[in-house]
């Protein structure tokens, strides 16, 4: 044991004795911190600020889970992962969960053996064109040059879309979003295509955002959500219901200003009581404290508040709720009941 500790300390990270337990919850509790895989930097979703503090829409999920499990939203180790390294990091146990704008697909769920616990953002691939081009619909784009990131699903979606509509295009392959912005602004391509949230974030950085329009067509389904490893259902449930608690809180009108009041004593809404632990034993069923949801919601508020602070219409990114509105408002955001 001492030997292991020594070697571990030597490898700097602190090699805790290799406990091959499947219970992620126990590991997280023993470690005292949650290892959460995030993007290396995506506007609005995950980015470190000037003090190195991570913030963003995906980061908020990590913090809520950490608060639910450990009672401390800052007990998170953010592990930046790239598109190539994210799945290995999760599969090998380097991170406990991944909240990294990852699209829920069949093969990722089944072939790569992951468990998507829900959807926190419904995205889809869109097109951005200069207003001066006078294009109103993606179907008018016959013969256009299109800036497209290589090696991504967006490339395949684009080919599918143009083939089904029987129109031609000329791809301009680019490597990163940064490069795409420069190429598009320099006029190397007529159209830039990527996820609609990315287009909005990119357009927000332009000198004259009003000169560019995002076309109405959305040509793919990109449900983004947090994911965990197959096989540890207790842990998956914790992450799933933390996300659901944020969603349900918005639906039931629980927000950061009335949270402490509602959590203090049972209200006349039994579902709020069950969720906030003033009634029933839901926390114990997850293996957590009764006030787990209160801690999770205290971090950044409910789903709607997190959306508004990070990517909503009052931020420079300015995304409308759209598909990501509550089901009661005509969106797709829907949580099973707390019962």
């Amino acid at each position: 044991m001492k030997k292991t500790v020594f070697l571990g300390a030597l490898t700097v990270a602190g090699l805790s004795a290799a406990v091959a337990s499947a219970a992620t919850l126990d590991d997280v509790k023993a470690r005292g911190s949650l290892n959460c895989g995030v993007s290396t930097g995506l506007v609005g979703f995950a980015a470190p600020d000037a003090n190195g503090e991570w913030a963003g829409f995906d980061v908020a999920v990590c913090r809520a889970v950490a608060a639910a499990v450990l009672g401390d939203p800052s007990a998170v180790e953010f592990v930046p992962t790239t598109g190539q390294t994210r799945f290995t990091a999760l599969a090998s146990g380097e991170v406990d969960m991944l909240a990294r704008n990852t699209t829920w697909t069949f093969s990722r769920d089944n072939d790569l053996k992951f468990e998507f616990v829900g959807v926190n953002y419904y995205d889809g691939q869109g097109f951005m064109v200069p207003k001066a081009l006078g294009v109103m619909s993606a179907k008018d784009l016959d013969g256009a040059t299109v800036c497209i990131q290589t090696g991504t699903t967006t490339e395949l979606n684009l080919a599918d879309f143009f083939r089904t509509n029987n129109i031609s295009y000329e791809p301009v392959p680019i490597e990163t979003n940064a490069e795409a912005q420069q190429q598009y602004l320099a006029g190397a391509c007529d159209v830039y295509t990527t996820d609609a949230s990315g287009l909005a974030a990119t357009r927000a950085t332009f000198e004259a955002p009003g000169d560019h329009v995002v076309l109405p067509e959305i040509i793919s389904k990109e449900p983004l959500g947090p994911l965990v490893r197959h096989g540890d259902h207790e842990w998956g449930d914790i992450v799933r219901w933390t996300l659901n608690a944020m969603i349900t809180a918005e639906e039931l009108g629980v927000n950061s200003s009335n949270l402490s009041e509602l959590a203090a004593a049972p209200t006349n809404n039994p579902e709020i009581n069950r969720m906030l632990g003033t009634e029933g034993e839901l926390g114990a069923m997850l293996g957590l404290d009764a006030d787990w949801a209160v801690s999770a919601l205290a971090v950044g508020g409910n789903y709607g508040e997190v959306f508004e602070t990070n990517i909503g219409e009052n931020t420079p990114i300015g995304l409308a709720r759209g598909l990501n509105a509550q089901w009661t408002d005509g969106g797709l955001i829907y949580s099973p009941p707390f019962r």
Partner: protein
Amino acid sequence: MSDTNVSYVRKEMLAEAAPPVSEIGPVRWVRENLFSSPLNAILTIISLYVIYWVVGHVAPWTIGGIWGASSLTECREIRDATVGSDHGIACWSVLSHRWHQLLFGYYPSHLYWRPVLALLLFLAGLVPVLYPDTSRKLLIVSAIAPFACFWLLWGGSVWLPVSTALGFVVGYFAFGLATRLISPLAGILAAIILPLLYWYFIAGDLYAALADTVPLGIEFVQSRDFGGFMLSVVIGLSAIVLSLPLGILLALARQSDLFIIKTFAVVFIEVIRGVPLIVWLFTAQLLLNYFLPPGTNFDLTLRVIIMVTLFSAAYIAEVVRGGLAALPKGQYEGADSLGLNYWQSMRLIILPQALKISIPGIVNTFIGLFKDTTLVVFIGLFDPLGIASAVRATTEWNGIYWELFIFIGVMFFIACFSMGRYSLQLEKKLQREHR
């Protein structure tokens, strides 16, 4: 005849006249170098125009840059208010806002003195090695520096580097004793085996005991918090320092007559050299995770340092092999005829000459290695380029490119240029001594 007084013969010497203006100073230099022929004159004028054009466009952008803003939008507002929106000017504010992250990554800001001190200590440790004129006693600084740097950078208990370093002390004394009492071969074997036994069986308990009795340490910093130029320098310098001895050993092994050693060296060099560095980095990041027992967390930065070291060692080995091959055979035979054994002849005669020949190649490899450290961005480490894109991922600075890339470029240029200058100086000095 002797009295003839010829009026047209000058009797006294003329005073020295100054050379014509066109033959001295700047005028001559300009005539000779810039306008020596009509073609050259035309080329000079074209070049001057190009320089004027480039500077005329770049200088206002650079010098007129805005420093005080807190976001790109604010930069644009200031620019519109001062020079108008049709002028592009730099927004250097991103540097004044985020310079600390570009330099130190996410290292805790109240501990910035530690990496700075570590770098100074490292340079101090380098002096006795690089400048042989300094006192030999200073070598003790060089021996301590790596452990002190490790401790300063990562922090934690002071006893960890101390108990590790003791292994080398064990090896040193074992070598001395066994060489004197038994034989040189026994000395080498003892110097390898005893420290390994010490690290495996004793060091852990010693560390635990020391840490329990005298808890002495500084704040521990995770390597995940390393970033920016600090990360590049840590990876680059560790790999440089470790790969040179390893590379020399590999070069000697490749020249060896012992079949197994030679085959091992050849296979190692060819395999490492035959695969791109980025593949090795992905191996370090992805594959090793599967081979290690689950739950193990072998530090990623350390994995990267090991991979980069091995990669650069293979290149150094080939450079040094070139130096060894360039030595005339007479040098090897001369060493043998003096009755020196293998290690003595290598240490005293062969390697000093071979390494001198190899200096440009070695420094070239090191410069390449230092720049290659930016490849770690692909495995999710925050090298300067990674930090730049993380800075761009915030809503304040999304959409800013040139300013960050120029800063990173300048920093790398300074580091690589100094290395190049040092190698030139070293070459000149060694040439004087030997010819």
